[in-house]
Each structure stands twice: as C-alpha cells, then as structure tokens.
C-alpha cells in the first residue's frame, strides 16, 4: 500500500522551525493561497488550494467541478446512441476525435459489427492528426507556463494547418462529430491525402525547430528537470495513463497493448521518459514524451495514408441502434491517456448508463502527491505537465 504522506519530498530544504542568529526559533506559519478558478496558468477553471510554508508547498487541494456540464445525464437522456457523440466531442475539446473514437468503439463492440477497412484507416489518420494538434496545445501553453511566449505562437500556427485538414473533411474546426457508429459521417475529400502528406513533410523539421526553441533551452531544462517527479509505483497506484505514465518510464500504450482499430498493422514504438536531463518521471520527461509522440504520430499517419484502401465508409447497421442488454468497457489511447467509456444498455434505443473514465480526471488526482515539497513557482509547471483539460476533468 502506498501512503501518499510518505512520498519522498523533492527538495532538501524541509519546512520547519527556523533558527535566528540570536538562537531563538522563528515562528513560521502555514499560509493558504488560492489559485484559480480564474488564473492564467490553471488551463481552465481549476481551483487549487495551496498550503505553503514560505515558498515550499505543504499540500495542494484541487477543487474541481467548475465546468461540470452533466455529460452523463445528457447521455442517458438522448433519443438514440448517435446523439451522444457531439457531447463526447465536448468532453476533451482539445482532442475531440479521440473522444468520439472511444465512444463509438464501445457502442460498436456492443453491436458486434465489423467495420470496412477504409473506415479504420481513416480513423487512425484522423486520431493521429488530432493527437498532434492536442500535443501542440499542450506544449505551447506549457511554454507560456514556463515563461516563454514564442513557442505558443509556433504551436498554434502549425495547429491551424491540421485544423484546415479537418475543416476540409467535415467542416468544423474544433468539435467534429465525424466518427459515427459504424463508420464515418462521410468520406475524406479527394485532395485530402496529398494535403496530409504535405503537412507531414512540412511538420517534421518543425518539431526539431520547436525542440531547439523550447525543449533543449537551458533555462527551460533548469526549470523542469528534477521537478515534480512521479515514481513508477505511484503512477500505477494512481492509475495514471498516457504521457504521464510513459514519462515515468513505463512502456505502456493502449494502441499497442490493448489493440483497437488497425494500429497493430503499423510499425511504431511508444516513447518513454528516460530521465535524460534529470530523474525519470520529472516534468521534462513528460514534455519530451509529448514531443516525440508527435513524430511517432507523423510516421503512423504516413503509413496509414500509404495503406489506405478503397471502399465504403459506413458499415451496414440498423437505422435504429438497439444493442442487446449488456455492458461494455472500451478504452482508447487519447493524447491525455486512457479514455474509457463504460456503457450499459438495457436493450432500448438509449444508453442506460454512460460513464466516461477521463484520463485528465485521474491524472489530476496525482497532483497533490507529486507537488508536495516543491517550490510554489514549480507548481505551475507541474500542473501544466499533467496537461489537464477541464472539460474532461469535470465532464
């Protein structure tokens, strides 16, 4: 059993009574600082109640729920399974496609339908493009957290190119409603493949440029290495997933280890943190995992585009979707980690219960454990490296 209180603190200077030069003990009081819900670097409406002694954090108490939009209630009240998809989009608004993927996978497993090969390949291409877009937001805003504004502009410029591809395909920039149960809403446009290939050739050198700009920047490394270390056993006990888990050196990726779609037909390797700049599992490791995952995604996209078969983009499914009574838990690897949907069907046309296991929610719960003993200025970086999206945390 892992006691959160006994975690190693990360700074040698422990809070405690301070001796003055005259030999008296100086009384130091704990102070409570409120960060959020309106704060530029909480990435949304997260509120952190921070107990500090001087500059050192004694405890962090996250207060969430400022964006609780009743997703699960809506899912139970829609008139059919299809109508839940737009609400899934709005869970993790930085990576809407991946959310849809997880939900449609759950319903398709209940219906036990086979998808056309073309659908699976297009889904992989879209999911990986979305992963790059989401990681670009993550590392761009992480740069702002560290005090660097320029990376944000670089990241958002490149992200616009991906959004153009999405816009070309389904007309929307942010929330797509593109994956439907049994297929896609419609086929990709004819010029999509060329444009996507162009993007891949354009973007690969940009990642190197971005790394030179931010990742290997001396100041950035000094601020992020050895900060907010998440040990392996704690990460597992808190069921962290995605770059959080891989940053701690655990080689675990659902795309490879619990295969769905056609990821098992493509050649790629998950990226893990190796502690190149400091300890394994520190903030820098989580950042570099995201940067390297973008390159991996590029290679997956190129392979999938090369193998893209012809065919239909909708499987033959009944007009009114009525899965047999039963339940299923399906999970996919989203940019933030394992997003699972636990869907219970009672045999009617609407879900009886939909629970979203949100990776951001679970990853955020480890924040108090990894920030105890850090300096208060590092908390911003630690919270940024968790890469939360409050829509998913609060649902």
């Amino acid at each position, binding site marked *: 059993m892992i006691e959160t209180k006994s975690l190693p603190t990360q700074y040698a200077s422990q809070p405690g009574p301070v001796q003055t030069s005259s030999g008296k003990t100086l009384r130091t009081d704990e102070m409570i600082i409120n960060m959020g819900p309106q704060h530029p670097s909480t990435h949304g409406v997260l509120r952190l109640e921070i107990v500090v002694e001087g500059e050192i954090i004694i405890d962090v108490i996250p207060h969430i*729920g400022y964006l609780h939009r009743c997703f699960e209630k809506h899912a139970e009240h829609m008139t059919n399974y299809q109508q839940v998809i737009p609400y899934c989009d709005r869970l993790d608004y930085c990576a809407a496609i991946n959310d849809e993927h997880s939900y449609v996978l759950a319903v398709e497993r209940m219906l036990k339908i086979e998808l056309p090969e073309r659908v699976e390949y297009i889904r992989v291409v879209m999911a990986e493009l979305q992963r790059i877009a989401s990681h670009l937001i993550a590392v761009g805003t992480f740069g702002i957290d560290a005090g660097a504004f320029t990376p944000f502009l670089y990241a958002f410029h490149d992200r616009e190119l991906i959004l153009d591809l999405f816009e070309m395909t389904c007309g929307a920039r942010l929330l797509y409603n593109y994956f439907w149960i049994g297929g896609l809403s419609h086929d990709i446009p004819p010029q999509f493949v060329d444009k996507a290939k162009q993007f891949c050739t354009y973007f690969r050198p940009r990642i190197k440029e971005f790394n030179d700009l931010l990742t290997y920047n001396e100041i950035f490394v000094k601020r992020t290495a050895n900060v907010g270390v998440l040990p392996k056993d704690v990460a597992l006990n808190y069921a962290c997933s995605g770059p959080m888990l891989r940053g701690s050196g655990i080689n675990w990726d659902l795309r490879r280890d619990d295969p769905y779609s056609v990821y098992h037909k493509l050649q790629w390797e998950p990226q893990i943190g190796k502690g190149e700049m400091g300890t394994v599992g520190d903030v820098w490791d989580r950042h570099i995992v995201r940067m390297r995952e973008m390159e991996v995604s590029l290679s997956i996209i190129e392979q999938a585009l090369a193998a893209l078969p012809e065919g239909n983009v909708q499987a033959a499914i009944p007009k009114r979707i009525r899965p047999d009574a039963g339940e299923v838990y399906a999970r996919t690897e989203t940019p933030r980690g394992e997003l699972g949907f636990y869907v219970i069907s009672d045999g009617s046309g609407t879900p009886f219960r939909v629970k979203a296991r949100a990776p951001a929610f679970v990853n955020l719960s480890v924040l108090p*454990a990894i920030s105890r003993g850090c300096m208060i200025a590092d908390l911003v970086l630690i919270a940024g490296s968790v890469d939360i999206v409050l829509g998913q945390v609060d649902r």
Partner: protein
Amino acid sequence: MTAEEILNSLKAKFGDAIVEAKLDAPQPWIVVNPSRTKEIAFFLRDDPATRFDYMMCLSGVDYNNGKLGIVYHLFSMVHRHKIVLKAFCTKEQPHIQSVTSVWATANWHEREAFDMYGIVIDEHPDLRRILLPYDWEGHPLRKDYQVPEFYNGMKVPY
C-alpha cells in the same frame, strides 16, 4: 488467468462474500459483498497469481429498481488480464466499503460516486462532494432526481 480461475480463487478465500458471477458475458463480472470490498481488493492486488495493480475505472450505477451499485474495472499490468467486480446496495442503506487504501486512484472516483449517486463510501479518507458545490442538494444521476427550481437565487431550468 481466466475469469473462472479468478472466481474460484476468490471463492476459496472469501466464501460467501462472493455473491454471484456472470462468466459468459463479454466482460465477465463477479458480485461481491459491499462491506468486504476492501479485503477482496487487497487480495486481488497482492496475490501473485492475480496482481490487479491497475484500476481502470470505478463507476456508480443506479439500476432503477431500488438498487445502487459500484462497478470496478480492474486490470493487471503484469499478467494482462481483466476482471469486473460489482458491489450492490439498496437506496435505503447505500453503504459500500472504500478501496482507496488499495488503489489511490479510487479516491476521486468514489467521491464522484458519492456526489452523483449518494452512495456512502465507508472508511473513505475524505468523503466530500467533488463536482457539484458543497451546498448542493440531492444526487443528480439517480434516475428519480428532480432538478431544483433555484440554486442560490439562480434559476436552474431553462
């Protein structure tokens, strides 16, 4: 391990704490006694044959027949096998034992189950509402929930 072997080892160890099981479902599940979830969870996590070290999901459910429940989706990183545990309670006596001391991730999930369904998690270290405001009344994901007309002077329905 298959679900059947897990069920047998649980039955051998805990006997009547295992209420029922459904092994022919696509994802087999085992129903356990709600007041003994913690020791069962400890066994499942620490037994070298099972090693369920990763809790994927914990969901509260209202079965709409006077019954509430919590569903645990467990996974083992070591053996790569899965099992689903369920614990049921009634709406009159909504008590289920906490597994936070086994998997730390259960902490927030259990708070959410308390918030949304009013399931009182016994022995939970910090049982407060998590998503809704602390002064909210009722548990909104119960099937018989009525939306309040006003909250703090703000009209709630459209």
